[in-house]
């Protein structure tokens, strides 16, 4: 027997463990397969699918003008919701992040803030959207608030990671050469955190674009509502032009955000 074979034989065998996991997984898959149901697909559904594809191939170009109902206007509105929402979220996340960082505040405080953040993160964006509509009335303003609050969950979590990885040696050496607290924050902490914070925020902006596009479905401004109306009334050419506009805008934002973040990483 060669050494290789000996090593191979010596590897621990956990057939029982693997079998149990496999059995549980298979059972769960079997259980959940009842969600698949083709019985409701009839000629109507196929006709609609055809309609959508035709609409995508022949978009209604009359929507690409410059009125308040046009696709470009709605896209800019969606972009504005995502942008302002990201800024609101980023500003609100900073205090949360410092309160959740276990190297800044006592453990119980950090733990409680984290629990709060988990709850904020789990509530779906649409629920906030529906709640804020009660506060501000339907319109893009509700969208901004929704995007802002949904950003807090993810942004603070990633900010916390950056804060907890702060290099404290820099601060120690600054203390030893006699820097004041303000100088320590300005030259010791801000440079370490700023680029990570910005990179994370840009990434979240990219995600918020998609959220902002769907918030319109509940009436919180942006391009979602016209899309829903166009679909409900079977105007596939308009659906096509809205979808094409949306996909192009999201792709541009994604490329732009990747480029910016790559630049930030390189310095």
């Amino acid at each position, binding site marked *: 027997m060669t050494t290789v074979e000996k090593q191979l034989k010596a590897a621990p065998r956990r057939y029982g463990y693997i079998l149990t996991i496999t059995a549980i997984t298979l059972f769960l898959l079997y259980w959940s397969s009842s969600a698949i149901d083709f019985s409701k697909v009839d000629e109507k559904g196929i006709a609609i699918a055809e309609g959508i594809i035709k609409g995508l191939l022949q978009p209604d170009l009359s929507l690409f003008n410059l009125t308040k109902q046009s696709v470009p206007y709605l896209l800019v509105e969606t972009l504005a919701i995502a942008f302002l929402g990201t800024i609101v979220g980023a500003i609100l996340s900073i205090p949360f992040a410092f309160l959740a960082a276990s190297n800044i505040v006592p453990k119980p405080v950090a733990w409680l803030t984290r629990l709060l953040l988990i709850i904020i993160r789990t509530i779906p964006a649409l629920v906030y959207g529906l709640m804020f509509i009660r506060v501000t009335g339907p319109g893009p303003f509700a969208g901004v608030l929704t995007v802002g609050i949904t950003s807090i969950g993810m942004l603070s979590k990633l900010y916390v990671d950056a804060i907890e990885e702060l290099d404290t040696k820099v601060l120690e050496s600054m203390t030893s050469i006699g820097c004041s607290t303000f100088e320590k924050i300005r030259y010791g902490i801000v440079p370490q955190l700023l680029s990570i914070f910005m990179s994370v925020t840009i990434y979240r902006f990219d995600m918020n674009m998609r959220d902002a596009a769907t918030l319109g479905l509940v009436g919180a401004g942006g391009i*979602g509502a016209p899309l829903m109306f166009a679909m409900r009334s079977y105007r596939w050419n308009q659906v096509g032009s809205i979808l094409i506009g949306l996909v192009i805008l999201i792709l541009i934002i994604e490329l732009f955000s990747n480029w910016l973040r790559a630049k930030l990483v390189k310095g």
Partner: protein
Amino acid sequence: MYDKLFPPKKFVLPNGKVVLQKRSRVPFITLIVIIAAVISYRFTEFSFQVLFTRINEFFKIIGDMIPPNWDYFPQLWKALLDTLKMSLIGSFIGAILALPFAVLSSSNIIKSKTVVSVFKIILSLIRTMPTLVSALIATFIFGLGPMAGTVAIMLFTLSYVGKLLYEAIENVDMGAFEAMESIGMTRIQSFRYAVIPQVLPGYLSQSLFCFEGNVRYAAILGYVGAGGVGLLINEGLGWRDYPSVGMIILALVVTVFIIERVSEHFRKKLI
């Protein structure tokens, strides 16, 4: 360009050397962000006045949600299970479909550039589609119910896992693959023994991670009629039955938390 407009600062060191310090771009970036924020402010009719006078309404709604309406749970149960079923089977099929898509879009495995770019474009087009929009379209094609939600989740998982997987395949160490080809294995055999072992743990871990996120997404898909608790949330908020909404949210938070813990446990084991 920026350096030409604002020439870099010159320092003359004691030994006569001239050092250039580039001007900071922070003021320029801040200016752009502020201008964009003001434009967005106009566009979205943002108003601090409304915010300060009406924000207590928001906390009032939250206050009404506590304590949650416990009696609502029996009605909630089925929808919650539907949500879980949708995300589980949707993620599973999506992750399986992601395999061929990812292989076909990896430039180091497939030699034809057209095939690679076509599949990459397909993946990114699917990815840009917001899940709720694809669920809306799916409800028109597959009828109302969990099937539409499953399709939407499947598409999202396919694009997300597919993208991460092809990036992983493109970054594997091709030495082992070449060595196996050189000793006479077919391309498929070398792929099986050289590439798959390198990308498998990452693939499984990303699929699990995607499943975690999908549970959250699946919760809202009901809003457009794609099954799950979304419909109940919409009804509850529409009828201003906030304690029931509180119950739904509590159930969701607990479910998501449990699933996250379990999935995190397995993801840690995988890597």
